[in-house]
């Protein structure tokens, strides 16, 4: 159905990673669905790159309550308990669904899906397909999607949400030729993934540019805990241009050892009990500390070693790691990997209810662009589970929205007009987006990285604000999207800095050197930080 040159559907899903596709599949039960994908659908986002696994309680001896306890503890008790409850309760069902839809997960010595230990978990709970778990899930979801009537729009990126009387009514989008399209719906699901591409060193794919945070925030939705950025402990160092490339936690799950330049298994100094399988925040800071104190490698990393495992085990359990490192000249069967922390995941995001409603009526969010599930630190294996549990919930909620008239109203026309003016500014601009983004990444890595303090954060924020005000330049209409994306990245970076300044404590991934780090997280008086167009602050427990 097209009205006034716009495409209308009952539900519009923005994003084609695990959460977006799951949302679209669910929403299709309720009516027509359009799925907007910035890439060729199925290839974008971080889900296809996710290596390690999917946490679900599947066996006797494990319990959703234990999964919840691990998730809350790992999240430094900043998680929204209702969201955690939904996650741990439904993750097993969503896993069984994936299996019924054809997913090929590994089988262990016992019957059924194999599960391996991941950091911060009391039971081996992480289901996996070698170290290409996310890819397997994505293939499965795309197969399922193909069986629905969902209209998939490939290589078309939402650049602004459209509002009518305080309600989200759809989105404006640019295709690969730079043509503006309008998509209207009764319910809109944001599932645009994360945004750690705002850091110099990041695991994210090129689509990890924080578009969802920016779109939601600009439209008036509230974001929470944006300071909570997970630095994955193990990112590859070499080659330089591929720095930050994820070295999966599965490497440690399978027995990988972290060693400093002196050959010390240094995790014994930081978490002697859990060692390499401590939570990611702890391991990342441990590695960063080793490097800062001069015990790192020449290139500023540490060693991650699996050479004590048999070549067969490595080939079977870590095929992608083996293949990737071989491509870069390192045989992990005989040599250690050189690793250092890398920006990986944003725990914060759009504030949602358990039904994935944001604070903006008509707008739902799922997956990494939402906040509250993981608190101050995410456990490995919980993100893939989150995509399925909350993708489905968001799709359902949006699908349950009543039918409303969908047309390009004067209010929407005004927004489109403003957008066209912005595009004209870009076409008339001065600074190429890559130069802005490069400076942004360095600013964020230096000022809002693993270790933080007020001066550094304020400096970073000032730097980001300067970059935000650069007049971005689009050489052709096809380059407009790059400008929009760079602007989104600048906005995300400022949200991270502002939120980080709002939280005067050490909590999970947020390490403030100038704040009290002695209060146990479950005794903290602080709740979520929040930012919106109309208010900002930090919740305090009475």
């Amino acid at each position, binding site marked *: 159905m097209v009205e006034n040159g716009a495409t209308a559907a009952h539900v519009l899903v923005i994003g084609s990673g695990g959460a977006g596709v799951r949302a679209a599949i669910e929403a299709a039960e309720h009516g027509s669905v359009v799925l907007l994908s910035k*890439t*060729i659908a*199925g*290839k*974008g986002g*971080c889900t*296809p*790159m996710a290596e390690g696994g999917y946490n679900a309680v599947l066996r006797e001896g494990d319990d959703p309550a234990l999964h919840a306890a691990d998730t809350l503890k790992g999240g430094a008790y900043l998680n929204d308990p209702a969201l955690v409850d939904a996650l741990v309760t439904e993750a097993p069902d969503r896993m*069984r669904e994936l*299996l*019924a*839809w*054809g997913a*090929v*997960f*590994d*089988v262990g010595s016992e019957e*059924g*899906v194999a599960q391996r230990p991941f950091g911060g978990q009391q039971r081996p709970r992480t289901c996996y*397909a*070698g170290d*290409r778990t996310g*890819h*397997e899930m994505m*293939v*499965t979801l*795309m*197969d*399922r999607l*193909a*069986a629905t009537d969902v209209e998939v729009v*490939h290589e078309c990126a939402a650049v602004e949400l459209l509002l009518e009387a305080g309600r989200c009514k759809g989105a404006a989008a640019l295709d*690969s030729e730079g043509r503006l399209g309008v998509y209207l719906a009764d319910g809109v699901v944001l599932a645009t993934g994360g945004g750690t591409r705002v850091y110099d060193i990041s695991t994210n*794919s*090129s*689509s990890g540019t924080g578009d969802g945070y920016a779109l939601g925030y600009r439209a008036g939705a509230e974001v929470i805990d944006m300071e909570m950025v997970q630095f994955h402990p193990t990112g590859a160092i*070499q*080659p*330089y*241009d*591929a720095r930050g*490339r*994820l070295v999966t936690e599965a490497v440690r799950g399978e027995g990988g050892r972290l060693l400093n330049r002196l050959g010390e298994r240094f995790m014994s100094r930081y978490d002697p009990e859990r060692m390499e399988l401590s939570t990611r925040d702890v391991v990342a800071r441990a590695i960063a500390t080793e490097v800062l104190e001069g015990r790192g490698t020449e290139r500023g990393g540490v060693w991650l070693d699996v050479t004590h495992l048999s070549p067969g085990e490595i080939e079977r359990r870590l*095929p*992608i790691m083996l*293949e*990737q490192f071989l*491509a*870069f000249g390192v045989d992990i069967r005989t040599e250690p990997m050189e690793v250092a922390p890398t920006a990986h995941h944003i725990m914060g995001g759009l504030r949602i209810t358990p039904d994935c409603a944001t604070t903006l009526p008509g707008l739902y969010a799922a997956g990494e662009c939402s906040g509250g599930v993981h608190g101050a630190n995410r456990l490995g294996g919980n993100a893939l589970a989150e995509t399925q549990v909350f993708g489905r919930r968001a799709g359902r909620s949006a699908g349950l929205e009543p039918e409303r008239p969908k047309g390009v109203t004067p209010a929407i026309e005004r927004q489109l007009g403003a957008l066209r003016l912005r595009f004209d500014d870009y076409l008339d601009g001065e600074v*190429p987006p*890559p*130069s802005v983004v490069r400076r942004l990444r360095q600013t964020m890595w230096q000022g809002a990285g693993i270790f933080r303090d007020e001066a550094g954060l304020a400096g970073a924020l000032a730097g980001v604000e300067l970059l935000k005000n650069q007049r971005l330049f*689009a*050489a*052709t209409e*096809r*380059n407009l999207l*790059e400008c929009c994306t760079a602007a989104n990245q600048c906005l995300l970076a400022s949200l991270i800095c502002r939120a980080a300044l709002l939280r005067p404590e050490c909590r999970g991934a947020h390490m403030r050197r100038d704040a009290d780090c002695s209060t146990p997280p479950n005794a903290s008086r602080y709740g979520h930080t929040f930012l919106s167009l109309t208010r900002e602050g930090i919740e305090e427990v009475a």
Partner: protein
Amino acid sequence: MAAVTIRVSRFDPASGEPARLVPYTVEVREGARVLHALHAVHEQDPTLAYRYCCGSGQCGSCAVRVNGRPGLACMLPVADGDVVEPLDLPVVRDLVVDLVPRLARIAAFLPGGEQDLPDRETVEALKDLCHCIECGSCISVCPAVTVTDFAGPTAMRQLERLRLDPRDTGDRTLLATEEGLFCCTSCQACAEVCPKEIRIPGKAIERLRAEANRRGMTLPRHAEVAALVRKTGRSVDRTITPLFERVESVLEPYGPVRGEVAFFIGCIYSMRLPETALDAIEVLRRNGIRVIVPKEQVCCGSPLIRTGQLADLARLQATNRAALAPYPIVMTMCAGCGSTLKHDYGNLPFRVMDFNEVLAEFGIEPPARLPLTVTYHDPCHLLRGQGISEQPRALIREVADLVEMEARCCGSGGGVKAGNPAEAEALGERRREAIAATGAEQVITSCPFCEFHIRAHTDRPVRHVASLLLEGYKKKDAEAASAPDQPSG
């Protein structure tokens, strides 16, 4: 940082101009990949269109041709002088190809069967076929895709993956036959370029064809060949006395013995192109190699394996194994026989060498040069099946001037010539154009199927490496005879 100059294909559909290569000089760091160089080019020239996403070889967005060969831009190291072009698929703009319609041909899982994960053994078999990242490389090099409605290699991979899954409810074998299962020439081009190293012809196509055979869906022409093999032990009609029945069991060299091979002649050289095989024997004898012809040899089984008709295979293999066991080196001349003996026979108590390998290893007496420009057609089962590329070229260059042409299947393999003649004709015609474009006077190859098939698709003589060498020797002898006072060299 180091400067590299790469040439990048630029194409603007609105311009009406064909694609052209544009040089760009960019600074890259040590270890940089092609993708990083493209990023740098894009900074210089923001109009460059290229696709990428994960940057770690997992999403399959960035496949391009680098120096003619498909690969993932994010994984291939960049080097000065690299030429970066789009995959050989319809180009949208610059390096961006129209991938989605191709990916749409990959079948989706059809649930409704068993709900739970299959047992471990099945899962392991499935996993072998699950690594595909749908980058399109295999489709872009598949000759069958260019002349038929074949859904493409990875579509076949997916059908085999679904067939093996008890949870899937589709009739995958039937669908495979509808999607062009018998169009594959088994040229192995897809396997050669797959960034995930999935050997689709062996792991999917031959297995689907075997399943089709069990279900009575084998093409009638293929079934005729299998019946002939069962009856006669040979894959072609006995219209002449086979060569191995006509020659002595042991053919001594003309000079001192420098080596010895047992010659596995193969059905086509024995019964369709015996002159070529005799040329090869002459060349070997002239170069001091004793040729033994085991009389019990039968069809190697290749026509059965490629078409999925496995019932009589074990018997053929046992017969050949026994016939060849006494000899340390078994020489093949047919690329198909060679590849089959090397890959489909398990461990053998002897070494299998192709004719070109034998000559390269033992070395040859230099022949006279012919005033001739030739091109070389790489037989698929020699180039990709056995990794033999340089040896025949070196031999050819001893005799004649060699001009290269792109290695591309001629259409005669995989049972296609018999089962799908129109496709074989169409691919043969592509070779005609490629051969004509080289300007060569003759086409040299090293496979009876190629030799036979290409003869029908070019006006130039098509000859085996051995025949060319022998002509060189004959000329040398003639020159020596006409100038007896000149020392021969």
